[in-house]
């Protein structure tokens, strides 16, 4: 076990969500790579992934040092031995982390930390302000057949996420609207609860023209396909607002799912030193604030919430810093679950969600 990080190997390869690692190519102001490269000599290469599944696929391919995995991918990567525990002592900023996240179950197994937290945030309800004069209070606008305030039906104008993990969004909605099902955790569903959730999703299929698969496509769909309401990420909201689109977002009363992402270290990392240097760099308040501002997420280092020029002082609150407890963070559904013994595992979610989308 090394006691300090050695010299950089000259490069580091990262799998990341789009918008997570920027070098000022889109907007000069948003650049948290160039300085790092200058300081460490580690050239950063980024491969973006649109879904957690894609991330897992990429990591299975190998060749990467780090991955900004969400909760539904992280444990799979741990189980698949694609990532390894890190030595927190080699990441000096570890101590500055938000306490709520330090031992998050989505990256801590048997007391060992498989990476450093990066950002977190809710899956918001994004809507078109021309249609909704005020923010919808319930996810029912995307789940139940109804007419929108503009008098036209919602069918064909709402979207849902094209990923099995979206089953949890439906479960979250039912957890609030159908308490008799006894759902305690949207990621831990018994057969009974699971089939009720699937029923809801099958109904939703009739309303959804196309499921959204990646962020940019959804942005397009709101612009050119007449979509007015959907589960989304703050990133799309920011993008559309920057484009002067009539778009806003909200976290409805039922609560929301969300993600908490971890920069994890690949088992076969070719550049471990640069990887450690990046993890340390990624926790600096400047980076944390910049990412949060760009992506619309919440920093994992509270210190970033103050004094960041891009994020602004109210940024953390806007992005949901205080909603932490309302959010059901993505995690991989497993058969042996904590809340009720046996649950429907993720592989079933995959097949069944494909069936749901198949209509």
């Amino acid at each position, binding site marked *: 076990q090394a006691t300090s990080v050695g010299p950089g190997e000259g490069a580091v*390869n990262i799998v990341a969500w*789009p918008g997570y690692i920027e070098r000022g*190519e*889109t907007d000069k102001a948003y650049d948290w790579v160039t300085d790092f490269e200058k300081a460490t000599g580690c050239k950063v*290469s980024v*491969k*973006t992934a*649109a879904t957690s599944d894609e991330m897992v696929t990429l990591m299975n*391919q*190998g*060749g*990467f040092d780090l991955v900004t995995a969400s909760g539904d991918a992280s444990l799979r990567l741990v189980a698949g031995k694609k990532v390894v525990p890190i030595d927190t002592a080699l990441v000096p900023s570890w101590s500055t982390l938000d306490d709520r996240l330090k031992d998050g179950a989505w990256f801590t197994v048997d007391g060992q930390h498989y990476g450093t937290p990066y950002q977190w945030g809710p899956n918001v309800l994004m809507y078109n302000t021309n249609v909704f004069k005020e923010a919808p209070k319930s996810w029912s606008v995307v789940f139940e057949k109804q007419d929108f305030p503009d008098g036209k039906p919602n069918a064909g104008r709402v979207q849902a996420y094209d990923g099995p993990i979206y089953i949890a969004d439906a479960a979250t909605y039912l957890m609030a609207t159908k308490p008799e099902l006894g759902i305690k955790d949207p990621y831990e569903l018994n057969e009974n609860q699971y089939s009720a959730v699937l029923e809801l999703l099958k109904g939703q299929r009739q309303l959804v023209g196309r499921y959204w698969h*990646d*962020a*940019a*496509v959804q*942005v*397009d769909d709101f*612009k*050119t396909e007449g979509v007015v309401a959907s589960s989304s990420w703050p990133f799309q909201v920011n*993008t559309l607002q920057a*484009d002067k689109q009539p778009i806003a977002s909200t976290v409805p009363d039922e609560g929301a799912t969300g993600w908490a992402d971890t920069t994890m270290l690949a088992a076969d990392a070719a550049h471990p030193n640069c990887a450690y240097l990046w993890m340390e760099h990624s926790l600096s308040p400047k980076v944390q604030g910049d990412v949060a501002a760009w992506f619309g997420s919440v920093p994992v280092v509270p210190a970033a919430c103050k004094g960041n020029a891009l994020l602004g002082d109210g940024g953390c609150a806007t992005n949901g810093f205080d909603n932490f407890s309302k959010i059901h963070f993505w995690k991989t559904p497993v058969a042996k679950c904590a809340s009720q013994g046996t649950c429907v595992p993720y592989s079933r979610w995959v097949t069944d969600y494909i069936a749901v989308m198949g209509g």
Partner: protein
Amino acid sequence: MRSEDGRAPLFLRLAAAGGLVYLLGPLLIIFVYAFTTEERSFVWPPPGLTLKWFAVAWNRPDVTAAIVLSLQVAAVATVIAMVLGTLCAAAVSRSRFFGRETISLLVILPIALPGIITGIALRSAFATFEIPFSFWTIVLGHATFCIVVVYNNAVARFRRTSQSLVEASMDLGADGFQTFRHVILPNIATALLAGGMLAFALSFDEVIVTTFTAGQQQTLPLWMLEELIRPRQRPVTNVVALFVVAATFLPILAAFYLTRDGEHVAGAGK
């Protein structure tokens, strides 16, 4: 062959014209959008026109890197496919024992099976034998499904190249190698060129197989996939697409005239 007399019937001309519009219209869209001022997504009609994307594309190192990689992959894959395809075609046309059918099937398989199968199969083989992704893993995948186009062109030309040319050469003192170099090769050259062009095009544009064999390298189509999905500077992809079409226009035309003359030449012996 005599041309059919007069003009084509009206409905045929209309159907063909409609087909051509369908074929070329969308290309026009690509060209128009290379000039749009709208940066992140495309709306119709374009809000304005600008030339700036050409400069932007020119200055982006990732564009040039991807183009260079794609050119290299396509070139190497084409050369391999040309060698293997020609060998295969020559063997089949020379031999009475190896069924052309069997070889044809083997050669056609990689293109007749969907790319995702080729991709995943190669990927799982790389994984099994712990072969790391590299330039050569991409080339391997591409060359595999490019062999068929070279093979088909070469086999057709071999069939048309009269056996008596080969015998005439041997009769005049050339052994197998000399005959290949001085008679067979020049005669199938235009067919190989046509096959090679098509192989190059297939490789240069292949996304699906590459997705599984590229690891972290970025060929032009992979760059485009990434670029089209990411909402920044989408017109750049259209600029690149426009550039590729423009750059290939002349070679395509040249190949057309070359292979057309080739037919005349090949038929001249009889």
